[in-house]
């Protein structure tokens, strides 16, 4: 039964299975184990980014499509919910309306972009998505009356989801079950649902055709598949899931702003997480996201430490090289090394090791 | 029989996961025209491309004029003396006819005598000399492609289906050109679906099926033997040899 739930696509590596189980248990019990807001925040971020990166893996790992617009749909989801709640007040219907609008816009926009760019060489599709993402970021800044510009939008959630609202008159296992906790579990189970749905998609006939198209489009067409339809569908599904992740992000942080959703940094982060985790695996997203979230939290601290000691040693250039502001430099270096030496990511590497050991 | 100018031994070629050439053993005698026959998909074009190094043989050996060229780069194979005219002719449409031919010279300059000789059986080229190759018709492009292959003296020409889609008059022109080349002791390995063209020109024949050579011998014997033609090509004995050329 478990096999069927996971669409016959198990982790296929003991370490990976162990990691995933531990991760799930940690995420599941987070509100009960940790009281600090930062820890809960980290946990929620991992769940949300998993949805975003896993849907990106669908496009890149399974379809072979590089879309730089993926983070844009995340932004659309974020701003959709935020603008609705900011302007029309924190009610359920507004929330539902905003989210639905964001998902619909994402679906339609992804279809338009795909259809417009598929007349030309595939590589041009990638470049087009870059152009669209840039235009979106510029638009967010331009329409600051709507989006709050650089400052972003703050808003309140419907009462039942707020941290002031307490369920159950007594604490549950020592925890005051607030609206925030409810929201947390909603987010967590969304990501679980996303995992299962994506596994189902990639292991279905649809998913197989996508892989066939990725390997050899001409042959897939010759066999009779209308590759255009499949690619459009994949684009649409991925965009909608990304938008959903954006909605969750906005709900969780009660904020939507360019630095968290529209800047190119977000897209780069997604790219790195997907590549490090392992493309074409779906599970890879969990690994990549976890590594990245922890690294991001601690990288700047580490850099600051190195920077301080470099300054003490009198090495000015060394200090500049390791300045916390230059974390993108090291990010880039790690990224490049990953592409060269771990093209299949952590999950790919683990699975390969298992195959080699079995032989 | 003298040493073959080209010998393939047990050559296999894989393209993606397709096993196209499955152990090709082919010997091309040093003079005359060897015709490579076979139905579509038998691997004839792949054989030429593998010889030329455009696709790498996964197994086997290719020896040209006594040298092992299996792992050579395409450019070096050309410089050793093999010219290649692909099925789609490979004409550079943005370049003029003159530029197309110039590209094929090693020195970057034309040898007047050689050019005059080529123009003697392709006189129309003179008229298109400065025209953009993309504006030429199929037959004219084929003239340019062949001319390009012989602008420098080469030991072996690999030609892939030159008569495809050409009007009969052009086919005749090509036949004349090939006869001229034969007279100048150029060896030609010709892939051709047009049996009449092949049989009138060819001295030797090799038949391919399913990535292997299933018959090799003289053209004369092949033409005479109805059973061979029937079995290997599905041609009926009553077919008139005059329908094309």
């Amino acid at each position, binding site marked *: 039964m478990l096999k069927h739930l996971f669409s016959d696509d198990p982790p296929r590596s003991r370490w990976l299975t162990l990691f995933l189980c531990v991760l799930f248990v940690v995420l599941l019990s987070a509100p009960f184990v940790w009281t600090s807001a930062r820890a809960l925040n980290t946990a929620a971020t991992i769940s949300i980014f998993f949805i975003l990166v896993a849907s990106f893996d669908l496009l890149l790992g399974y379809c072979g499509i590089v879309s730089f617009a993926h983070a844009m749909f995340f932004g659309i989801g974020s701003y959709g919910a935020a603008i609705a709640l900011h302007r029309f007040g924190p009610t359920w219907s507004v929330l539902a309306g905003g989210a639905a609008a964001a998902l619909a816009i994402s679906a339609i926009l992804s279809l338009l972009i795909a259809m417009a760019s598929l007349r030309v060489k595939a590589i041009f599709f990638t470049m087009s998505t870059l152009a669209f993402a840039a235009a979106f970021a510029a638009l967010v800044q331009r329409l600051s009356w709507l989006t709050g510009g650089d400052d972003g939008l703050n808003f309140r959630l419907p009462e039942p989801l707020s941290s002031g609202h307490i369920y159950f008159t007594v604490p549950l296992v020592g925890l005051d079950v607030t609206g925030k906790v409810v929201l947390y579990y909603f987010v967590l189970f969304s990501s679980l649902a996303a995992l299962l749905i994506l596994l189902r998609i990639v292991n279905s006939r649809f998913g197989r055709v996508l892989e066939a198209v990725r390997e050899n489009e001409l042959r897939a067409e010759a066999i009779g598949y209308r590759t255009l339809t499949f690619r459009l569908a994949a684009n649409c599904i991925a965009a909608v899931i990304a938008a959903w992740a954006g909605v969750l992000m906005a709900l969780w942080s009660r904020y939507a702003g360019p630095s968290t959703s529209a800047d190119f940094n977000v897209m780069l982060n997604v790219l790195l997480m997907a590549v490090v985790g392992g493309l074409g695996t779906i599970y890879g997203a969990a690994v990549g996201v976890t590594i990245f979230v922890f690294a991001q939290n601690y990288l700047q601290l580490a850099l600051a430490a190195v920077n301080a000691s470099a300054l003490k040693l009198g090495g000015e250039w060394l200090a500049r090289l390791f300045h916390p502001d230059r974390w993108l430099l090291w990010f880039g270096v790690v990224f490049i090394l990953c592409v060269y030496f771990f093209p299949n990511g952590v999950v790919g590497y683990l699975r390969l090791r298992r195959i080699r050991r079995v032989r | 029989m003298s040493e073959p100018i080209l010998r393939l031994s047990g050559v296999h070629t894989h393209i993606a996961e397709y096993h196209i050439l499955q152990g090709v053993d082919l010997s091309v005698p040093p003079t005359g025209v060897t015709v490579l026959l076979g139905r579509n998909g038998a691997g004839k074009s792949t054989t030429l491309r593998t010889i030329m190094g455009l696709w790498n043989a996964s197994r086997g050996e290719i020896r040209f004029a006594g040298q092992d060229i299996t792992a050579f780069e395409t450019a070096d194979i050309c410089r050793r003396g093999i010219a290649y005219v692909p099925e789609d002719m490979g004409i550079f449409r943005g370049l003029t006819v003159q530029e197309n031919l110039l590209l094929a010279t090693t020195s970057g300059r034309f040898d007047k005598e050689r050019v005059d000789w080529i123009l003697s059986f392709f006189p129309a080229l003179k*008229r298109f000399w400065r025209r953009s190759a993309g504006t030429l018709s199929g037959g004219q492009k084929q003239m340019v492609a062949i001319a390009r292959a012989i602008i420098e003296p080469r030991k072996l020409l690999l030609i892939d289906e030159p008569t495809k889609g050409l009007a009969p008059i052009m086919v005749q022109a090509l036949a004349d050109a090939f006869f001229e080349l034969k007279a100048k002791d150029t060896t030609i390995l010709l892939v051709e679906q047009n049996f009449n063209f092949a049989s009138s020109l060819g001295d030797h024949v090799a038949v391919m099926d399913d990535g292997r050579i299933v018959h090799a011998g003289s053209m004369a014997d092949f033409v005479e033997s109805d059973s061979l033609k029937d079995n290997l090509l599905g041609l009926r004995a009553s077919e008139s040899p005059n329908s094309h050329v």
Partner: protein
Amino acid sequence: MTSINPPSAIDASAEPTALPGRKLDIAPFALLVGVAVLALPLTGSVSTWVTLTVAGLAMGMMLFIMTSGLTLVFGLMDVLNLGHAAFVALGAYVAATAAGFVQPWLASTSSAMNLLAVASVMAAAVITSAIVGLVYERLFIRPVYGSHLKQILITIGAMLVMVQLMLVVWGANQMQLMPPSFLRGVHMVGSVAIERYRIFAFVVGLVVYAAMMIVMHSSRVGLLIRAGVENREMVEALGHHIRRMFVVVCICGSALAGLGGAMWGFYREEFSASIGSDVLVQILIITIIGGLGSITGCLYGAMLIALCANYIGFLAPDLAVVSDIIVMMAILLWRPNGLHPVAAH
């Protein structure tokens, strides 16, 4: 046996007549002129129109210089180098530093000294970009030939690293790059003011274009590149090691980007490390709409993008952020292979 007719039977008159010469494709040029002409009544005033048009032409030339390297590399080697924009930034930064060294020449009242100074600054930018380009090709391009996906990933990472290294070397402050007195200010034509630097940028761009066309059409290397962009395999089959030329083309591409960056830096006068990534999207769009490997197409595309950006920026500022995309979509609907494709594949 077959009958062999005398060669005189081959007569071109039996073949369908081919078109004389290469059909001169004036449609893209007509489009440019058309857009400019259309903008005149919309703008309302002649002097505003002239200012916008001159700005568009100048910017178009600079974009052309920046993009030409990318389209050649992509067209010839089938390598997508998203890090190209980093060389634009590098060129601008090196120019700023070099300008510091020739400051007296730049400040001089003699226009000859001015031009000499600018030329040396540009030379510094070009040479540095070429050297870095050599290293870049070895580290980031050569290992990923043949895989578009890896190229995209690696070159994005490379661009990040390059820009960050530039910040390490030069610091995070704004850079200053003032054009010399000879190139500053305006030139009056009747009642219309035309910025001197824009004229200079246009002339430089034209010179670069002319030089590239001469090399492409009169030299053996140019012949190889033009043929290689159409059909790499066939060029190899004709005996040329075209792979060896890749490195040279790559270096030239980086050098051109550096030159474009230096010109752009003078124009902007003050800039940060994002000067490269600011134009990345435009460079990519121009590459798409120009036609891969086509220098003339690149020129048309750059002009079109720059002119439209200027006109739309004035007429409908809210649309300005999407003007590039609109132009791209429109052109691709009309000519999917680009404005001036090398050869429709």
